[in-house]
């Protein structure tokens, strides 16, 4: 269709529009990302490595990995279950359920942190109960895991659901007719067909879990070496004018983001009707 001259813009307009769009993306997106790496290496690779091997940086990296290792599997199990439920069964309230699952997208990260403070904090609903049993949730690792889980709640559902819906239930029904149990159907029929979309959903969920700032900031208490995650450590270093340190830790998070985008290219984008194999969606774009 682009070859029909009747419905194409003159070359000059085409190139002007393209130039504006490319310039906008270069200035607004590419430059900030590039500047992260440039500033991280401003004082050479030695200073970069020193900033990353600093004990507090290492402890922040460790805590970020722990929080993601707990919240991502939880949301993956939930995401697959909820996507199966919504795609495979017809029941009243499917739309309401989907809207409720989307809620964490609409809630400010700060409010996501606040609700757990109101629930588990010293003055919170369950605060007195927790302090009686000397359990710490807020200003401790459990609060960070909870806040992270809340914020990354919808990601896996939203990646897996469109794939399940586009595939229909024919194969699952055939398997059930032939006598397979529900779990067998899921692991032998459904899972192989959604695995790449699911993998991308998990990678996306993980990227958001590791990069979450607002919600974690509210519940963490910023105790150095104890409740500092990588994004919080970036903030502390930046506010202390330790720019090389801040950008060095930030560069790890930026690499994670770039790897996530690469995974999207390689695994295909589930919501464009991927057929359960890498790159299947490319033709749809």
């Amino acid at each position, binding site marked *: 269709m682009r070859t029909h001259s009747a419905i194409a813009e003159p070359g000059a307009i085409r190139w002007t529009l393209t130039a504006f769009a490319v310039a906008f993306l270069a200035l*607004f997106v590419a430059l900030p990302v590039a500047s992260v790496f440039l500033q991280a290496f401003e004082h050479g690779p030695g200073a970069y490595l020193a900033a990353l091997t600093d004990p507090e940086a290492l402890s922040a990296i460790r805590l970020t990995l722990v929080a993601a290792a707990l919240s991502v599997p939880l949301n993956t199990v939930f995401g697959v279950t909820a996507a199966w439920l919504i795609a495979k069964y017809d029941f009243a309230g499917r739309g309401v359920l989907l809207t409720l*699952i989307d809620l964490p997208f609409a809630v400010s990260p700060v409010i996501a942190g606040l609700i757990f403070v109101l629930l588990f904090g010293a003055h919170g609903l369950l605060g007195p109960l927790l302090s009686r049993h000397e359990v710490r949730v807020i200003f401790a690792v459990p609060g960070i895991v909870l806040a992270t889980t809340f914020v990354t709640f919808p990601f896996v559902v939203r990646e897996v659901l469109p794939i399940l819906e586009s595939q229909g239930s024919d194969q699952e029904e055939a398997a059930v*007719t032939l006598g397979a149990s529900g779990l067998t159907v899921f692991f032998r029929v459904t899972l192989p067909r959604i695995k790449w979309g699911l993998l991308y959903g998990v990678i996306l969920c993980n990227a958001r879990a590791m990069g979450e700032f607002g919600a974690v900031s509210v519940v963490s208490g910023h105790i150095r070496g104890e409740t500092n995650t990588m994004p919080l450590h970036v903030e502390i270093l930046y506010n202390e004018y330790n720019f090389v340190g801040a950008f060095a830790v930030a560069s790890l998070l930026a690499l994670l983001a770039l790897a996530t985008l690469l995974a999207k290219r390689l695994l295909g984008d589930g919501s464009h009707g991927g057929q359960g194999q890498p790159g299947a969606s490319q033709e749809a774009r």
Partner: protein
Amino acid sequence: MSALPRDAARTEAPPQSWRLRRSGLLPGFSFTFGFTLFYLGLIVLFPLAVLLLKAAQLSPSQIWGIVSEPRALAAYRFSFGASLTAALLNALFGLLVAWVLARYRFPGKALCDALVDVPFALPTAVAGIALTSLLAPNGLIGRLFDAVGIQIAFARPGVVIALTFVGLPFVVRTVQPVLLELDPALEEAAAVLGASRLQTFLRVLLPAIFPSLLTGFALAFARALGEYGSIVFISGNLPGKTEIVPLLIVTKLEQYDYAGATAIAAVMLLLSFLLLLAINLLQTRTRAARAVRK
């Protein structure tokens, strides 16, 4: 966030799957239903309900007093104004980027398409320090504006730029698939009937993509309202001037003013609910309109 705009592009399930689902042949409904509701309730609904419960313990006059104090009003005004400006900028630039990516071939197009998703994947704190260091008075770009006396970082323009960065993917990813799906016959008919290219765009194309543009705008606006990570670095956080609502909530919390934080957060939560409902309605309509066109 990423899944929301693409949801607008989601193709409806083929009709036969509806029929099969209704037949109820697959086992496991009660287990998956029970588990989904339990987990949703535990992680999302119960904690959110606690916020509303805490807010309900305050008297209406108390809430009004907190929400209407000058500092809170200024924060609401600043958050709304900056988010609205950023969402408008996103609608404009997002439409441009979506148009160019959907219609033209040029070297580096795949890279540009990938760049659009960067704000989804890049942690907001990283975006915040990167933009701040570029736009600060001594930064690479900020210095150019500082020379002519314009302050970007630690002032309103910086906040708008950061919010535009964060919201960029929403408009592009809702408009782009609609542009790709448009039937060229419509444009050909307009051209044959003597319409200029600009007329065709304004009277044929724009009405067709407008619902998706509006959806992308609303998504970018909703995202901007709640944004915290990048703004806390770039805004300078001057109370009454460049203080956003999420930051005010954090400040109240740090001063152990739980009632204040709760009241302001509850108002914002209700606004977010309304926006989410409006967006869902828009997306349902967009999807229905596209189903008819197909």
